[in-house]
């Protein structure tokens, strides 16, 4: 139960009536045990699909994905069920969907632990400890309250607790802070941090930059691929195994899709992209990074804000 994740050329295709939609078009991603990762990206980029793949809820069409020792492409349904019962905790979007409304907080945790126990797991934490981990135990009487009696924030933390009931190595959470106010959101972020500190790898799908910033690493998914990564306030484009690079939106504003560019490797290790229609007034050797400062100051953000949908129509125009 080491909580590591490895994706190589991961592809997933939704087969609909009359046409197919490629949701993931070759995702390469490595997540080390104990990392906390935010999967960012616009709606429809494939974040939740990637999360579902990692949870073993759907099978990859191509590529390889492993969670711990489990090869998600080859595992049987029983093995995937075992993986979810022992190694992976999943939090679906919307706290209510993770909880049985007629069970108390403690009973919901025990319900999740039953599955683990049926797979032979014996050293399960006490429900109180699990609830304490997400900061629910300190609130009086929460142990015996049913989900509808909790506040939205508490309900979300209870959903986290249920996903952590069997002490998984990997926690996958889909939009854990949607529909929460800022106070509740901060409590959830704090809870996630507690979980990570306890040794669990945390992968969160989110639109919320605050949540993304709260994670140690941000991975941006664009058009079904890893489009960028960032950590400690910085974002980087990632060079794919096939040499492709997803440019961030602010660069795309300068270099719209279809623009022919020339790449100039520079002696200092940087690469200069020059549009083909532009006269190469500046040779690579003459380039000074300081010249870009104004551009970055205007366009770059530490972490892109995907909570608002990008206005692609304007970009295309």
């Amino acid at each position, binding site marked *: 139960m080491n909580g590591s994740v490895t994706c190589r050329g991961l592809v997933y295709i939704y087969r609909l009536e009359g046409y197919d939609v490629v949701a993931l078009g070759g995702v390469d991603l490595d997540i080390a045990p104990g990392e906390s990762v935010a999967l960012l990206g616009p709606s429809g980029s494939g974040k939740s699909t990637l999360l*579902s793949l990692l*949870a073993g*809820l*759907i099978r990859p069409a191509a590529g390889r994905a492993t969670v711990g020792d489990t090869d998600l492409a080859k595992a049987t*349904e*029983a093995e995937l*069920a*075992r*993986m*979810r*019962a*022992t190694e992976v905790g*999943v939090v*679906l979007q919307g706290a209510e*969907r*993770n*909880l*049985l*409304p*007629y*069970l108390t907080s403690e*009973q919901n945790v*025990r*319900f*999740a*632990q*039953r*599955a*683990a126990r*049926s*797979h032979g797991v014996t050293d399960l934490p006490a429900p109180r400890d699990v609830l304490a981990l997400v900061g629910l135990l300190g609130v009086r009487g929460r142990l015996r309250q049913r989900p509808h009696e909790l506040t939205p924030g508490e309900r979300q933390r209870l959903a986290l607790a*249920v996903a952590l*009931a*069997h002490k998984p190595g990997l926690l996958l959470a889909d939009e854990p802070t949607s*529909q929460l106010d800022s106070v509740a959101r901060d409590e959830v972020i704090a809870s996630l941090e507690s979980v990570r500190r306890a040794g669990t790898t945390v992968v969160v799908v989110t639109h919320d930059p605050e949540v993304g910033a709260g994670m140690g690493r941000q991975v941006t998914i664009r058009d079904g691929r890893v489009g960028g990564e960032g950590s400690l306030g910085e974002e980087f484009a990632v060079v794919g195994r096939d040499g492709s690079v997803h440019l961030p939106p602010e660069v795309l504003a300068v270099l719209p899709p279809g623009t022919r560019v020339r790449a100039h490797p520079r002696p200092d290790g940087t690469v200069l992209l020059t549009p083909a229609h532009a006269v190469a007034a500046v040779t690579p050797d003459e380039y000074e990074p300081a010249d870009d400062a104004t551009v970055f100051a205007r366009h770059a953000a530490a972490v892109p804000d995907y909570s608002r949908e990008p206005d692609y129509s304007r970009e295309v125009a």
Partner: protein
Amino acid sequence: MAGWSVMLRGIRHRSGRSLVVLSLAGFATAAAVLAPAYGRAAQQSVLTDALSAAPATAAAVTVTAEGSADTAEAAHQPVGDTQSVVAGALARAPRLAAVLDRPVGSVSTDTSLQNTRGGRFAARLAWHQGACEHLRVTGDCAIDAEQVLVSERAAAEAGIEVGDKITVRPVQGGNAGRAYEVVGLYTPLAPQEAHWGNNGYFAQGQSGGEGAPRLDAVFAGAEDDVRLGDAVPVTLSIAYPLRPEQVRLDDVSALRSELGGLGLALNAAELQVETALPSIVEDAAKDQDALARTVPIIAVPLVLLAFVVLLMLVAALTEERGPELALARLRGYGSGGTIRFGLGETLLLIVLGAPLGLAAGLGAVELAARTVLADGVHVEPRWPVFAAAVGGLLLACAAAWLAARATLGRSVLGLLRRVPQRGTWRAGVLEGVAAALAVASLAAALRDRSAPLALLAPAALAIVAGVLAGRLLSLWSRARLGLARRRGKLPAMLSAAQLSRRPGAARTVAVLTAAVALLAFSATAWDVAADARAQRADDAVGAPTVYAVSAAHPQALVDALAAADPSNHSMAVVRADELYNSQRVELIGVQSQRLPAVAIWRGYDQAGLTELAGRLRQDAGRPAEVSGTLTARVTATVGETAVRVGALVSAPGEPPSIVWLGKLRKGTRDYSAAVPGCADNTCRLVGLAVGRDTGESGPVQATLAIEELRSAGQPLALRFDTAAAWKFLVDRTPNATVKVTSGAHLGVSVTSADQGDVLISYLDTPQELPAVLAGAAPSSDDPEHFDLPGFAEAPQSFGVLEKAALLPRAGEHGLLFDLDLAVRAASVTQGLSDATDLRYEVWAAADAPADLATKLAGQGVRVLRTETVPDELDRLGRRAPALGLRLYLLAGIAAALLALGVLALSTRLGAGERRAELAALRVTGVRPGVLRRGLRRERLALLGLPILVGLLVGVGAAALMLPGIPLVTVGTAGAPGLAGDVLGALVPSLALDALPLAVAGAALVLLLAVLRGGRLVKRATPELIRGGNR
């Protein structure tokens, strides 16, 4: 946390839905239990009814021995000894012994009784166990030797008083008289009760043989007093009354074999066993067989419907629990764990529902047994009932598994998806199976509607109609949707869109249609059968109340009734039957003038009966009543032999007798004689006689011109001018030459050398008795005019006034005529007191005196049996067809309730989603009024179509099936016509009957559903969807 705990919490969380599943599972089990439990109880009821309805003396087991000591030694053994012998034999027949009551022993013999004044009477001398307990005794009870009791009326007849000594001599086997002291006078408390057996103790007034009047039995205090000598034949009888309520179905075959064994065992002891028990059981077996065949088939549709609804409900509930199941899978529950979690609640409820259903089913049958079935019948919880319950439970579990299988097999994301699943090919296969079953049962029905498979036809048609209605709704909604789109009518568009895209709507419509069709069929069948039973009861009884009575002769009954009921709201009826061409022809003589007020005769109303009554007596001449002195004015010429003239006079009940008026002399003279025993014009002149004077032996030769006959000074209105009224009775003097000439004076010319007197009958009635004929005429020549023995043995001419489909109380083959005319005609040749084949009845109208039976008894007419239309209806209501149809009606009502439950549930299950949809539509600007109209249109289609199709199919199936299946009694099917008969039968029953009630109920449900449809809009406010608060 234990799975049980989660399961129970889930059940509590979904308490409403859980209760529905529990109820439905119970209902399914109850439906499964109903067939064996109700079938058994109904069969037992039929058996108990048959045994109870049979005369107690016939159903009892009677051990007899009869004869002198030489021919039947057992008859001369003490009753106690014989009882010991029988008890020993019964010990080897335990089942039989268990259903028999305490024995009643008796010894009797025919005797001639002489009172103190020397009068002789015929009477049966009897010793009967426990007689005094069943008699009202004035004086002392005869308990010692040489003590006897005589009846009050015998004492009055014979002039016997308490303390008198009477002498009794045996009729056969000796002439030694034995004297007994009369210690008391008795009146039987209930002469017809089973205690007295069929010994004929109370037969006073009947012919006693050898001309001696018969008295009621004389009861001796000691049995040895009845044995008047070894040569005197006596009858020993030990009756073991049957306790009908103790005879169980399981006992029947054992009883038959034990009766056989008992007979063999007692034959060895010269005792005979008499009982009609096997034939009564045999008769009941026909109804039982019919029930055994029909009840399971009737129950099948209900069971199927219950399981289909359970299947639908579990499918919907499992679908609703999709997110919970997804959660279980998400947490790593394996397939087994998910199934346990997903199906555990339902299965637990089904298992809990099974005993409740078993109890409910048994309770329903017990309720039916107490209210509808025969007394003493109760539900029997035997192994088939429990097997059916277990079978129902397994079937319910299988249905739950089938219903949940598709949902349980879906992936986590599939379970979380809200888009409804599409129908699969399996649904089509099930529909195909239903259609094939319908075709097969329809084919069977067309060949033989009473075949067991044919009984499935209505249910199969109902199911197919349901399937078709479901499909029709989808097609119609799609078509309406397109039309509404083009026309831009929003309410129509909304309702059509809902109905065409929701797969649940088609399923709901299918169940509703099937249920309504089943209800319509069963209600129609019940109404038609109820009408048929009412008609049969009216036909069979013939009047609101009919008393079967014993009377000395027809006139005695008429006189007694006139005294008992001066209001003329009752009618004396005399019946007989004759065989013609091996077919029974029922003859009914009625008091025509009272017929309209009393009789119930299908096809005749009051006016029709009045008109008919008038025609029945249209040509009735006045009777030639005589009393006191009879005088004839005759002009005569006489031959050498002295000849006398006489009148043939008939006293009521007695054979005609000759009253000689005097020796004929030449010329015109009056001849007179007193007519003895004919006070108050009770006698009639029925003819003339010419015979030799006393002491003469020569040939009779005379010519008479009878000018007038007078009685008590008044001339008799005789029909001298009607030749047909005067008829030479050739049998007495076959060689005589007699010429009768009609005219102003009656001319009679006689030449006879025969020994007997020459008799000329006079008929004061029409030559032909006017009659109404039902069925084929008992004549191969002329169907309108024929001769048939009437109340007398001599042929009676009948003239058919009109033909009727049936006669009241006489069925479809008989003759109905005026009683007075028939008696007058019969008494010309015979005394009707001796006519043992006449049956006497009093038919009473609803407004006849309530105590008529008592008043009749006061007039010496004993009521043997009372029949009323309600009693007959009650009896017919417990025959196999009615019991089967009752179950069908129950099934129809249950199906309708089930359908209502489905409707309520389908509305409830999707209510949240629906409100959210409506709220969303309101947000987009659709006005509430439009939504309300759309919802009402939707409800109208969802309910209106099933109700319409269901009613049409149900009534159509009834029109197809009912004419061919037994409605009243087993073996008699309805008329062979199709729709006309059924619909014709329905028209007069459009009162508070089952079908009108069902239609009214359906219309009410439709109205309520449509009116309440708009309420959903009220709660579908935009706030509902704000913040995802679904």
